[in-house]
Structure formats: C-alpha cells, structure tokens
C-alpha cells in the first residue's frame, strides 16, 4: 500500500484513529456475542467492515460539527466519543444506557457529543440532518451537519426532497452515502437504476465524488476536501463511500443473497487490518505500541460488557416519563 497522508497526521493522531476503529470492531463483536446470549434484544445492526468510513470522516471533523445517521449507529456514536459503557448498556436495555434503556440499538443520541441519532426509518434522518444544517446557518454557526445514509435510502423519495432543499437554501451539509452494496438483502443492482448513487444528488447542483470507503486515508482525504468545499462555498457536498458490511443486515440475517466467497474476498481488504498494516509498514510504527492499544481495548470491552450486564433494568415508572417535556 502506498503511504498516503495528505493531512500530515502525526503518528500519535494516526494511532488514535486506529484505536477508534479497533474499539468499534471489538465493541461490535461483543455486541454480537451478547445478542447470541440473549442479552441484547430486537434489532441489532453491526458496523463491522465499515469502520474506515466513520473514522475517516471523523479525522476531518470539527468537534462542533453535528452528526446524524440511521439505525446502524453504534460505530457512529462511539466515534463521537460517547462512553462505550453507556452505548452497550443501551443495547442491553438498562438504566445506564445512553437513552436510559428506552431507545435501544437504533435510537441513541448525545447533544453534548453533537450526535443527533440513531433513526429507524430509512431515509428519515436525511431531511432531519438538513434541518440541523439549516439551524447552523440560521445561527451563523461555523458548523457542518454530517448526514449519513445507506445505499438503500438512496431510492427513498424524501432524500431527494432533502437534497433539493439543502442545495436550494445553500445549507452546510455533508451527505455521506455508506454504500455497503445491500439494502437489507437487496443488492444495489436490484434496487437502483442508472449510474452512481452520488450522481443522483449532483442533478440538484450538489458536488460530489465516490471514494474507496475501505481505506481510512482515502476517506480522510475526501472528507477534508468536502469540508473545505462546504466552508468555502456554503453549499452542500456528497461523498459516496464504497464499503461493505461483513456481517448480516441485522443479527437475524441468513445471508442468502450473497455468497461466502464474496464476503471472504471483501475481508481481504478489511479496513481495520489494512490500517494496521499501513501503520506498521509505511509509518514504521512499533508493533508493540499497536499491541498495547489493542490489549487496552480488549480489556476495556470486558469492563463495558460487565457494566452493561450489571446495570439495572429501568425503573418501571420510567414507562411514563419523557413522553412530554
């Protein structure tokens, strides 16, 4: 792999990004285990395979920027710096969960960390995110609303209404399509007519590009380009991330719609492993340093698991709280 670091990140910074990617990977593996053990209920959509997208974008983010996504949100809220304990306790439906056990896997929010969810209806987060961008502009804030959507959402009508509004009103929004090739079990070839997905936004006058979403450095480079464009032009931008999820759509996915060979082939470009190899080979970072990070994360995940299982169930009186403010 070519050494590619247009952002001149220091080795320490790069290690931090790797740490985040590894944390998401290990967190999601633990979530899968806990789901299998019956400790997590309902729907649980894992982010495994797509880590380079969220961390590559993170590398370009101003801490004041806001983020909104759909239901595959664990990696996103972890990337924004929310305590993994609170995230896992939400998955186990406990009192100490980030949403007090009332949201679940798909509904997690943190205003302090500028994360606006966590939305379960495909496409619905896109107009919401444009609205957050509207608020940034209304208040003359130098913030960008970062709106994630999947390839499945790119055939949903309200997404195009949102593109139109974002472009018409020149809102500071970065749309990020996480094209993992399947909307649940329907491949993109069976759901989307025409050319590239991001081109569906360019007809509204939104500039965009398609990027290798398995490679942290490529994502980071495009994310920084996007940020500069939005800041300079006060207009939205769109990036289509070519990525892949190694696990099923949700935990109950039998995976009949794709072959094992296809999945295994994609695992050869595992974004976490590739990042690690790049750090070792191209940046000459000591293997021990990486090992230390990995063992710390593994230890942290054990604590996270313990916390999420020991936290009590929500008090029954919580049923009727927070319906109205």
């Amino acid at each position, binding site marked *: 792999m070519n050494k590619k670091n247009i952002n001149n990140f220091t080795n320490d910074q790069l290690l931090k990004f790797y740490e985040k990617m590894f944390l998401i990977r290990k967190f999601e593996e633990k979530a899968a285990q806990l789901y299998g053990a019956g400790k997590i209920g309902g729907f649980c959509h894992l982010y495994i395979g797509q880590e380079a997208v969220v961390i590559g974008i993170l590398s370009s983010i101003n801490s004041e920027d806001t983020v909104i996504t759909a239901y595959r949100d664990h990696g996103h809220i972890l990337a924004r710096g929310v305590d993994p304990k609170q995230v896992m306790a939400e998955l186990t439906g406990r009192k100490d969960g980030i949403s*007090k056990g009332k949201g679940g896997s798909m509904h997690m929010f943190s205003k302090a960390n500028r994360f606006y969810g966590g939305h379960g*209806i495909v496409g619905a987060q896109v*107009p*919401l995110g444009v609205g957050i961008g*509207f608020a940034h502009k*209304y208040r003359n804030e130098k913030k960008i609303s970062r709106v994630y959507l999947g390839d499945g959402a790119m055939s949903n009508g309200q997404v*195009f209404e949102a593109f139109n509004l974002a472009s018409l009103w020149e809102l500071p929004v970065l749309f990020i399509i996480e094209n993992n090739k399947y909307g649940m079990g329907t491949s993109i070839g069976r759901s989307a007519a025409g050319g590239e997905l991001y081109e569906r936004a360019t007809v509204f006058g939104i500039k965009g590009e398609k990027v290798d979403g398995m490679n942290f450095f490529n994502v980071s480079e495009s994310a920084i380009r996007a940020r500069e464009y939005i800041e300079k032009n006060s207009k939205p931008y769109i990036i289509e991330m070519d990525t892949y999820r190694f696990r099923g759509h949700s935990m109950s996915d039998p995976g009949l719609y794709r072959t094992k060979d296809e999945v295994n082939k994609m695992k050869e470009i595992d974004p976490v492993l590739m990042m690690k190899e790049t750090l070792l080979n191209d940046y000459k970072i000591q293997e021990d340093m990486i090992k230390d990070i990995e063992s710390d994360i593994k230890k942290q995940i054990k604590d996270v698991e313990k916390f999420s299982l020991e936290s009590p169930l929500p008090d029954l009186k919580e049923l009727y709280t927070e319906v109205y403010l």
Partner: protein
Amino acid sequence: MKILLPALSPTMETGNLVKWLVKEGDSVVSGDILAEIETDKATMELESPDDGKVEKILVKEGTENISVNTEIALLKVDGEEIEEIPEKPIEKSPQVSSNASEPLSSEVNISMNSLLNQTKENSGGKNWSEKEISMREALNQAIEEEMKLDKDVFLLGEEVAEYDGAYKVTQGLLDKFGSKRVLDTPISEHGFTGLAIGAAMAGLKPICEFMTFNFSMQAIDQIVNSAAKSLYMSGGEINVPIVFRGPNGAAARVGAQHSQCFISWFSHIPGLIVIAPSNARDAKGLLKSSIRNPNPVVFLEHELLYKEKTNVPEENDFLIPIGKGNLIKEGKDVTVIGFSMTVQRILNALPSIEKIGISPDIIDLRSIKPLDEELIYNSVKKTNRVVIVEDGFGNTSFGSHLSYLIQSNCFDFLDSEIIKVSGKDVPMPYAENLEKLALPNTDEIVSAVKKVSYTN
C-alpha cells in the same frame, strides 16, 4: 349585461369593492380589468366578460361586505338591450358572515363573542385591552408577537411568504421578518417537515405550515416517528419544539382529498399535543402557548372559521393554557361537547334545543390532547347525559375514545347512553347537498340531545 360580484374562492361569500378601474361611459374589451375585489383570501382583479361600454356603476368603490352575485355594474354589449334596473339597496351580508352550508350562531342570536365575554376567567381573568378581529388576524398576531419575542421562532411552508399565505394567515410577515425567518418551501411536505423537525432538534422553534392538513399525510412519518417519539427514545435528550399548523377538516365544496378532519389521527399518537380552537380569541392564546411549548404541537385550524370575529386581547402576555377546555354555556340538563367547527354546529342547534325546554352545558374542548377531563366529568356528573359532536369520520374516532373515557370515569352518573354525532364514513362528496349530509347537522344534534334526554 349585468356584472355580478363573482365568487373568487371556494369559501367566499362576500367581498369588498376596493377600486373601480373604469368609469361610466368607458369602452372595454373582454378581459379588461374592471375593478379590484378583496376576497377572504386575497385582492383579485375583476375582468370584463365581454366587449362593450360601461353603462352604469351600481356599487361605489370602498363598499364592503357585498354578497356574491350582487349586481355591481351594467355593461352595454353591442346589439344588446339594457334592462332597467330598479333602484334598490346594496345587498349586504349579515354583520358576522355565515358558513356556506349552515347558518352560524350570529344569525340565531347567539354570538360566540358574547359567550366568550362571559367566560373570560378562562384566560387569566385579566382586563385585557381588546379588539374585535377575525381568527385569521388573531393567528397572524400570535405568530408576529412570538417571532418578535424569540429569534429562534421561524415560519416555513408553501406560499407563506411572497404569496402572503394561501389563506392570508401569514400576510405581511415576510415584510416584517425577512426571508431568513419566513421561508417559502417547494411543494415538498415530506422534505420540509423533516427539515423543520431537524431544526427543532437543533434548538430552533419552527412554525411549519401545511397549506391544509390533507397535505400533512405526505409527511406523517416525520410527524409521528421523528417529532413525536424523539424525546422518549432519547431518554429525554432531544426535544422537538415545533408547531405544525394549518386548516383542517372540511371547507366548502373542495372534494374528498381536501376535506378531512385529522383530529383522531394525531390525537392517537403519544408525544403530540393536539389543539383545535373554535374562535379567534382562543386561536391567538393557544397558538402563542403552542409556540412557547417545548413539545411538538399539532395546531388544527378551520378554514370556515378564519373570518369569524371575536374580541381578542392585544397584549404579548395573553396566553390560553394548553389542556384547558371552556364551558362556553352553562346549563343543567345535558353536556354537549364540541371543538373547532363543531362548536358552531352546536350553537346553531342551541335555539332548537332550548325551545324544547332543555338547557345544555356546552363544552368547547379547545385542547384535544391533553384533554380537560376534569371539566368534562364535572359537567357530566351534573347533567348525567352526553352528546359529542365531531366532524371527523365516526369509525374509531376521537369521539369514540371520549365516550369511552366518560363511561369509565362517570359510569354511575350516566342516565343514558352517550351519543356521538360524527361525520359520515364516506369520502367527502362534492355536491352541495351530499356534502351537507356528510357532516353533522343541526337536526342530528337536536335529535341526539332529545334522545339522551328521553324527550320527543
């Protein structure tokens, strides 16, 4: 040829002759502008229907409240004999104009204004400086006052800005607040509703106008799944301070897709507040409270009530609390419950009810959710009989739920079945007679009151 005052909107019954653009003796060709007419919604131009000469102007400019179909001028068309027009007074509509299908209260000597004057304790009991204005003006005032008080309040919707509002509710606001705070949207309800909710999540206080609530169906996912549920599913982290407002229910002859009451739909959803005012005073006080409320509020107006006038306080701090109904007429024999347009329908039936010696409590709910249960139950415990009037379809309706609540909370006090007078379970027909039949009417309300009172 007689030039008549035309109906220039579905709900127009009277108009004002703002200005003549021709004078007697002028020659005109078909399509020339003869006059400017102010309707309930806008100022429109009246075109000449034919080539000819303006023979006589029958109604002076500046005349107000001229009924539709009044002769306003004579046009001498080539080859046509002019008939002699006997001198007669201009037809003026009654002081308070009437609903297209049924007379409103004013014509039966029970004015909403006088009833409200007797019940002012419901709005704080203060001596307000008041002015008689229409519901349309009252809503406009409420928005203007709240936008002045709080820079986070903004208004968006179709035609709210440059067009001055499809129903003139937002008239003049663009000039006062500029295009940053008063935004015309594309015809894109799903998108702009989601945008408004997102802006509310980020701390702004949008007023999201639906040109009519029929179009809110395009956006109902965002209202139900994003606005109503975010506070709960975020464990209290994200609130959505937004008002969805616009006309709801059947207007006049606009057909099935534009005539439907959504009160039962929205009041079904936990997390939404639902308001349905019946008069200008309540509309202002409740809209101001709604804009200040930190929750999503569905504020259901009624097109046929926009022009109705009552005394309305002019002060900034005039608020009507959400969740408080109003006993607009106190009686003893039966509790008749309505909201929005059905309050007028009940008042229309009141003389017939009183004629048979029955004295009703009339409750205007104002707030559908939360509901003023105390007011309702206290009245039912006194009268022991209940009639509920709603314009919406009767099947699985809000009225059905209300009758359930009453029977479970006042079971031992009831002396009769509860009767619900609802809209018929049919798509709204266009024909005038069928439309009238589809909505609750005076006879049905009177019959229901008689039935619960065991009176013939």
